[in-house]
């Protein structure tokens, strides 16, 4: 029991109730419990010293570990004020009053004493009149610190904070079904009720299935049996009823992205797109998949795309080059370190497969598996993420057809691969057949790459993939 002692009164009276009496007539709730305890009438903004109550086990002092409030913050009854620790016990101290924090008596890591003031709270002089018929003057129960509302003869339990929320939104508590203990109405019940009224989405639904890096390189084969294409669940956030905008600083990784993308867009991009018929490749992969699995490796389409790109770069090495800052020199890179864009929780990361020019398709598959598992575990090393010379982005695993990819400096070209779709096409005999079609969108640095070069490279890459057997001729 918190006893509020008044220093200035000559005849000292002790308040037995847990609530401090307020003289403002509009807050009738505790009026019958009022006992005269001050000779001077105070109408509002009375400062109460909230003392640290007994922790139990004879403990007299604790260490203040974290403040949940700061001076000037508004608190409601039962809001958490701070966390203190004593002898392996962590204790959450909650507010006994509604009001505004005026003073914190301790800093972090200070020792606080039981029975001594912890914070000073300026008690609310009940602004915003609660509709009088909703409030019933019932004596607070000895161990239950909630107020009751008696509406139409039906007792409804709700804390002052919940009551206020209902009042702010013009809701009659009698219309809400409480899900708390003893049918108590909780904040969630009010929010759910409101959601139903406004059709808002509550509570937050699971994040949209952002494809984990492991599935990134698996272009979804649009085979007839695979109809269960995931319908993206819109990412929704809990509705903030205060309606305030939220501003966060751009930090760490995002800051670096800002810098890179700003530099990237200084590069004059041009785009070139095409359609690739992967029907033969799909079949080939089906045959090779089990062989790879026997060796413990997942074989997706990416290793083929990557190897074909490398073969193309051998013929058009300017696409694997780098232009220096002053645009004075072009460096033709010897290694084909082909980057694979991966989507992670943090955002876009681009690890690369080193020296693809001397790797087999299987070697590439092995390396991709390694990069994917490290990527999803958040354990990619600096060497995995640096040294790239050319990039492929398989955005098709998430969706889309054509794209406009942004070149990642210091590279000069990038390709975005759309999803594989089953579409009708004409074959050589003029017959319609089911084709596995994928779109590719290339972007290149127009300062040193011209459209014709990009087109020829794309055609070569396309021919390798449309007729995989032709890759055998040029494989090194």
């Amino acid at each position: 029991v918190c006893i509020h002692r008044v220093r200035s009164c000559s005849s000292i009276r002790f308040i037995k109730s847990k609530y401090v009496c307020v003289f403002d007539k509009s807050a009738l709730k505790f009026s019958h419990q009022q006992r005269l305890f001050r000779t001077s009438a105070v109408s509002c903004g009375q400062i109460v010293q909230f003392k640290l109550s007994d922790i139990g086990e004879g403990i007299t002092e604790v260490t203040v570990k974290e403040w949940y409030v700061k001076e000037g913050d508004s608190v409601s009854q039962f809001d958490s004020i701070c966390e203190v620790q004593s002898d392996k016990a962590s204790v959450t101290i909650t507010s006994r009053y509604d009001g505004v924090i005026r003073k914190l008596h301790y800093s972090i890591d200070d020792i606080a004493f039981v029975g001594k003031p912890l914070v000073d709270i300026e008690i609310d002089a009940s602004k915003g009149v609660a509709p009088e018929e909703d409030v019933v003057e019932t004596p607070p129960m000895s161990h239950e610190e909630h107020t009751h509302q008696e509406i139409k003869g039906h007792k409804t339990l709700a804390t002052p904070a919940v009551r206020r929320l209902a009042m702010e939104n013009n809701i009659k508590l009698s219309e809400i079904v409480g899900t708390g203990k003893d049918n108590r109405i909780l904040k969630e019940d009010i929010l759910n009720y409101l959601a139903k009224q406004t059709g808002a989405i509550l509570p937050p639904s699971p994040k949209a299935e952002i494809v984990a890096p492991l599935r990134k390189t698996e272009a979804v084969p649009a085979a007839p049996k695979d109809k269960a294409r995931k319908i993206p669940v819109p990412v929704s956030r809990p509705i903030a009823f205060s309606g305030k905008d939220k501003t966060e600083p751009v930090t760490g990784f995002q800051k670096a992205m800002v810098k890179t993308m700003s530099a990237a867009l200084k590069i004059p991009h041009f785009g070139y797109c095409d359609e690739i018929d992967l029907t033969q490749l799909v079949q080939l992969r089906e045959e090779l998949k089990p062989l790879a699995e026997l060796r413990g490796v997942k074989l997706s389409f990416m290793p083929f795309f990557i190897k074909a790109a490398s073969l193309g770069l051998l013929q058009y090495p300017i696409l694997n080059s780098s232009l220096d800052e002053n645009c004075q020199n072009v460096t033709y890179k010897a290694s084909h370190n082909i980057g694979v864009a991966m989507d992670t929780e943090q955002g876009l990361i681009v690890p690369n497969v080193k020296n693809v020019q001397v790797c087999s398709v299987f070697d590439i598959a092995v390396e991709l598996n390694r990069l994917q598992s490290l990527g999803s575990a958040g354990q990619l090393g600096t060497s995995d993420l640096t040294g790239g010379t050319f990039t492929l982005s398989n955005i098709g695993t998430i969706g889309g057809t054509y794209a406009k990819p942004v070149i990642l400096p210091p590279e000069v070209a990038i390709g975005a691969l759309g999803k594989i779709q089953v579409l009708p096409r004409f074959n050589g005999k003029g017959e319609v057949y089911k084709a596995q079609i994928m779109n590719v969108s290339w972007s290149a640095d127009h300062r040193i790459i011209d459209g014709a070069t990009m087109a020829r490279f794309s055609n070569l890459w396309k021919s390798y993939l449309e007729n995989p057997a032709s890759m055998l001729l040029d494989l090194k």
Partner: protein
Amino acid sequence: MVLQSLKNCLWLSCVLRTPKAFFWSTASGGLIIQSVSNDIYQNLAVEDWIHDHMDLEKQQVLFLWRNSPAVVIGRHQNPWQECNLRLLRQKNIKLARRRSGGGTVYHDLGNINLTFFTTRKKYERMENLKLIVKALKALQPQLDVHVTARYDILLDRQYKISGTAAKLGRTSAYHHCTLLCNTDKSVLSSVLRSPYKGLKSNATPSVPALVKNLFEEDPSLTSEVLLDAIAKEYATQHQIDHHINLINPADETLLPGITNKAKELQTWEWVYGKTPKFNVSTCLNMAYKDSVLDVKVNMDVKHGRIEVCNIDLPEQWLPPGLYSELVKSLTGSKFCPNETTTLVTTLLRVCPQDDELHSRWSLLCENMIMLM
């Protein structure tokens, strides 16, 4: 000894384990529940749920749980100080921060966790620990176990077999403790040894102790046997049925809101972000070409993010523009190897393409990342 094992078998066969949902409303003075999950976050979420939503006035609760390998730090601790985070990541051992105070523990299936839920007024740790000791002695009277003033349970007067922590809220409280049955001690000692140097912090430090498994003392003391014995003793003391109710922490209908609680416990903001402010002051010894560079590093980390960063490099070792970019990017970013790796590799894209520069940059960044 044979009689003892027979007795154990009988207990096991008699114990009713039911996954029924209606037990929340039983009027008896106590309730024993056991989690079917071995996921540390889900199980910690159950504790949160009971603490926040159950009325413990009429009914106290004993919660039994075990976890697959995880390191659990106390509410106000510093994970960099307490464990080998690199090793945890390599071995795929989870890291969790619980809401109760106290020190760091290693959990695996050979360790059992017991949580005693009561009202704030009935919070009494010694009683609970004595209950456990009583149960152990009932199983094996020869066992030399006793409770210390620090709320530890010691075996043979020297080996710690149980550590305690507690959480007190407005109306309810819980006291939980571990019990070493058959934990992998080599993993335990390797993960709980921090390699990070130069950390200065006011976070609660752990007190290392010699440990021993009960299984080593007496092979009949398996996790199952111990769980049952403790449940039996609890049942006796609370005058209730020796009946363990199974609960599934993924059951949103039984425990509404539990999924969100489990999610919150897994966020970076909770696990790492709740670390009290600390400072890293150390010296990187970087071997570059023919010499070794001593680079002093000083960082203040608050809420798990780098607030201030100073790296004392030799003049012109890195172009000044690049150095300030690095410091600017690190400031405000998470004190996390993954975040730093992606940050520095992304920054490298806008640097002059110079091999010498790149190798210096990589060297410095690799060393910085090792601090995290």
